[in-house]
């Protein structure tokens, strides 16, 4: 049994892996709450509506850990992602999902005992609540997870909408959300004009400061009469506050790249599409990582071939656009994520083990690196000798597009810089590729100096 390294905070249960399958053990006080979740009809309502991850009860398993009164096998999530990899729209939808789950829980006599952004995952473009043991019996008391909701969701979203759209990337260093203190300090004065933000962030912070001493009696204070109507009213107010937050309109760096891709002739573009289509065939069930995938045109080709596509890009608005499209199409096979490949998500949290690095979540069955290597080579200054082994570590197969030095795009990225890149030669590139990969197919793109390679890891 391998206990999940992020599953130790709540003694109601924990996650573990046995022979590759993920299980959730229900322990001690968690059992009563779990039984209520089932008995109240809340589990059926949430899981049939796609809001909560469904699970099977595993009876009489010989590997059940000591102390577990019940074993659950949740339906696996194909790729685990984190809030600092989501776009604004994803964080907002995760917030609204959490509130909707809480609203339905309240209506059935239960309440969420936490409101962490790590309790939400994406199955394609659909957010789903994954913590089956987050529910407890409702009492006439204020919501214990109110502060956590404001620090994990409302505050970061308000900051994204009103300061920097990409500020949530710093959540990678703030795994318990932005503290209210910091949120209030960073928000512009006009945030106070919105009653929801004023109440849930500014006044909330003021109350926190006033009661900062937190002696024994007062730390249990205020759990008096706070009935169902007030609890529903709080959730409703939070929902409409979140709902009203919007990203300021902006132009993406590469958002119009596909539309403006004048450096591809129609013939070259078609050849590229056909190559990806051909090389992802027969891999259904595998994961595809599309690195620098822009708004996901090639991810979608893979997804149509039955792969689960994770489309990474470092441009927030690009990811936002891709997500909006995937959401509109209810795409269950495409997950758009934010990632700076030159500084991929690190392993983080307690003992470096709670949140996995990108590499730890791999390797992918298929990697796409289309119109990417020249960016990494020139902008991030990563030599091919460094780049190719990293790509090989992240995917068992790959489709890589080589973009030569004299390509218009490379020249554009180079700008006025001198060209110190001695390895920027097709022959040299191939030589480095062949150390790690077997080249399965090679396809020059007509009218350009570019070449596509279909590769399989040695």
């Amino acid at each position, binding site marked *: 049994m391998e206990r999940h390294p992020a599953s130790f905070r709540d003694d109601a249960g924990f996650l573990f892996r046995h022979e590759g399958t993920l299980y959730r053990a229900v322990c001690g006080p968690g059992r009563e709450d779990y039984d209520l979740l089932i008995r109240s009809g809340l589990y059926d309502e949430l899981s049939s509506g796609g809001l909560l991850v469904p699970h099977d009860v595993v009876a009489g398993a010989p590997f059940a850990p000591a102390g577990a009164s019940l074993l659950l096998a949740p339906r696996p999530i194909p790729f685990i992602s984190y809030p600092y990899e989501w776009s604004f729209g994803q964080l907002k939808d995760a917030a609204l999902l959490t509130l909707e789950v809480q609203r339905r829980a309240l209506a059935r006599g239960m309440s969420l005992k936490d409101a962490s952004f790590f309790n939400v995952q994406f199955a394609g473009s659909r957010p789903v609540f994954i913590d089956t043991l987050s529910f407890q019996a409702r009492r006439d008391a204020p919501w*214990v997870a109110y502060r956590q909701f404001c620090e994990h969701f409302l505050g970061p979203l308000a900051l994204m909408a009103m300061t920097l759209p990409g500020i949530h990337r710093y959540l990678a260093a703030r795994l318990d959300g932005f503290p209210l203190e910091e949120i209030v300090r960073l928000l512009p004065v006009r945030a106070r004009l919105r009653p929801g933000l004023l109440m849930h962030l500014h*006044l909330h912070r003021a109350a926190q400061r006033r009661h900062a001493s937190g002696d024994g009696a007062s730390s249990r*204070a205020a759990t*008096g009469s706070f009935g169902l109507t007030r609890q529903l009213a709080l959730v409703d107010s939070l929902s409409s506050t979140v709902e009203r937050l919007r990203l300021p309109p902006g132009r993406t760096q590469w958002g119009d790249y596909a539309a403006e891709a004048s450096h591809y002739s129609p013939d070259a573009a078609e050849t590229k599409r056909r190559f990806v289509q051909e090389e992802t065939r027969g891999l259904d069930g595998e994961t595809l990582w599309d690195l620098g995938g822009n708004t996901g045109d090639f991810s979608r080709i893979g997804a149509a071939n039955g792969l689960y596509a994770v489309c990474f890009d470092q441009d927030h608005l690009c990811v936002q656009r891709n997500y909006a499209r995937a959401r509109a199409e209810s795409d269950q096979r495409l997950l758009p994520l934010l990632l700076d490949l030159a500084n991929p998500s690190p392993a983080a949290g307690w003992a470096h083990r709670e949140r996995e690095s990108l590499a730890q979540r791999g390797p992918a069955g298929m990697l796409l690196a289309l119109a990417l290597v020249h960016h990494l080579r020139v902008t991030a200054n990563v030599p091919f000798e460094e780049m190719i082994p990293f790509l090989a570590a992240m995917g068992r197969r790959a489709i890589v597009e080589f973009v030569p030095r004299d390509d218009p795009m490379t020249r554009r990225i180079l700008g006025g810089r001198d060209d110190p890149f001695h390895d920027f030669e097709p022959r040299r590139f191939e030589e480095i590729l062949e150390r790690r990969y077997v080249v399965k197919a090679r396809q020059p793109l007509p009218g350009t100096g570019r070449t596509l390679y279909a590769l399989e890891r040695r």
Partner: protein
Amino acid sequence: MTEPTATAAQPRPRRLAGGPGWAALVLLTSLLVSSEAYAYLDPGTGSLVIQVVTGSVLAVAYTVKVYWRNIRRFFRRGQD
């Protein structure tokens, strides 16, 4: 003979840090405590207090909203 102005000359007692309203609220709610035996998340005292403080306002707004929605639904149904 006592100096009648002596008491007036003394410094006035300082106000309670949170003001009498807040103090009364905390005291009242402390008396109604049912302790959180299994809570693993620290809710934060201020976060609980602020919910009680804003609770009535939000509840009124919410109730009005729900009634209004029901009224609209009733008339819309009437139109069909």
